[in-house]
């Protein structure tokens, strides 16, 4: 499983951080950081984050 974030679309709403705090985080400079290849056990959290993204910028591959 791979988490892809289209940073052209991302407008830093932060909904992914609420839905999946173990996978997404804001860095001190405000930029988005995420775990690109999480464990399979995190799949639901990754999908939840993709679902609530207002810009639909998150795609889960694999």
């Amino acid at each position: 499983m791979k988490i892809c974030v289209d940073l052209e679309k991302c407008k830093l709403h932060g909904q992914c951080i609420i839905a999946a705090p173990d996978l997404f985080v804001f860095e001190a400079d405000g930029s988005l950081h995420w775990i690109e290849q999480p464990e399979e056990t995190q799949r639901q959290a990754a999908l939840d984050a993709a679902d609530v993204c207002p810009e639909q910028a998150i795609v889960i591959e694999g």
Partner: protein
Amino acid sequence: MARGALIVGASLSGLRLAEQLRALGYTGPMTVAGAEAHMPYNRPPLSKDVLFEDASADPLTRLTFNIRPSLSDVTWQLGSPAEASDLQRRVVTLANGRDLNYDVLGIATGLTPRRLPLSGGEENRHVVRTIEDAVRLKAALLPGARVVVAGGGFIGCEVAASAVKRGCIVTIVEPLPLPMGRAIGQDLASAIKAFHEAHGVTFRLNTTITGLVCDPTKSMHLQAVTLSDGGELHADVLIEAVGSVCNTGWLAGNGLDLSDGLLTDNALRVEGRADVAAAGDVARFPNPRYGHTPRRVEHWAIPALTAKRAAQSLAEKLLGREPATKAFDPIPTFWSDQFGMRIQSIGMPGLADRTQLIEGELTSLGQPDKGLAMGYWLGDALIGAIAIGMPSAKLSEYRTMLTTQG
């Protein structure tokens, strides 16, 4: 006709319901029926960037939701709204006459914009709910056009800001003393009103639209609106942002409580029926986090969250799954973009009896790098926060405050 799962409503909530049923292991037949001719698409941009961006691409291409592989065998019945239903016989009838049978029914039919109870001027009157609405409105938002927005709620303020960006001359007519006042409280509403005024929006508050003045030879053509204070506003465009009505007419005759959306229990089951659940804007459910009163919540995160819970309820019936025991107590969140200023809300600020600034200053609202946040209390409990121009990391910080207290 195959039975199995039928989801009525093919927007965000219907899509999420379908996905969640598959995620829970349901592999049987599934039909999603929708009033609009399109596959599910993302609506929030319709009142925002779709209206003011000079995009060459078809907005529908950009806004259509990604469809997961798990939904590849779903039957989509699009372009015809549900017209009637018989929950005893487990059948839904679409406006095109087609009968759809089901074993479990997911209801996600959402809202239709409320219209002003006035006739005439149809050519120049607009709402914003569908992609067609937005495309039609954008074409009317010509530089110099005089735009009257009926209703100063979030949608009204967003479309007003979008129209100003298009070069229109914009007036918001709002019956209450402040725009968005009920949702965000007086202090913040006053500051946002001043911010809008500084960008060129005119407010006519404590005022309603009482009549439409139309071309005497062509009643479809609007010329002006008359106001409750005796005034009149020239109107090339009238945008009606006066709330919504729930699309529940097709459920009439089943003995359901349809007084405000569709009443459900905490697990989103409709009146205790094991085979019917609701999700999204239309679902009126009790949230133990905010007392016993069932409420509809038209906030961004609610479709995904209610769809997840509703799917669990339907999976109990479909797959014989154990009932979920944990109470469903979602924390709503939504955002609004107005003149490049981002407003982010978490919790239920509208239920508060007291507000207090928790960060920044109201006078700096809208200034770059000067964010602020308002806290909302009901009794001693912090029940919501609204951040404006703050880094989004703050939102999760406030969320932690909402969940960890008391």
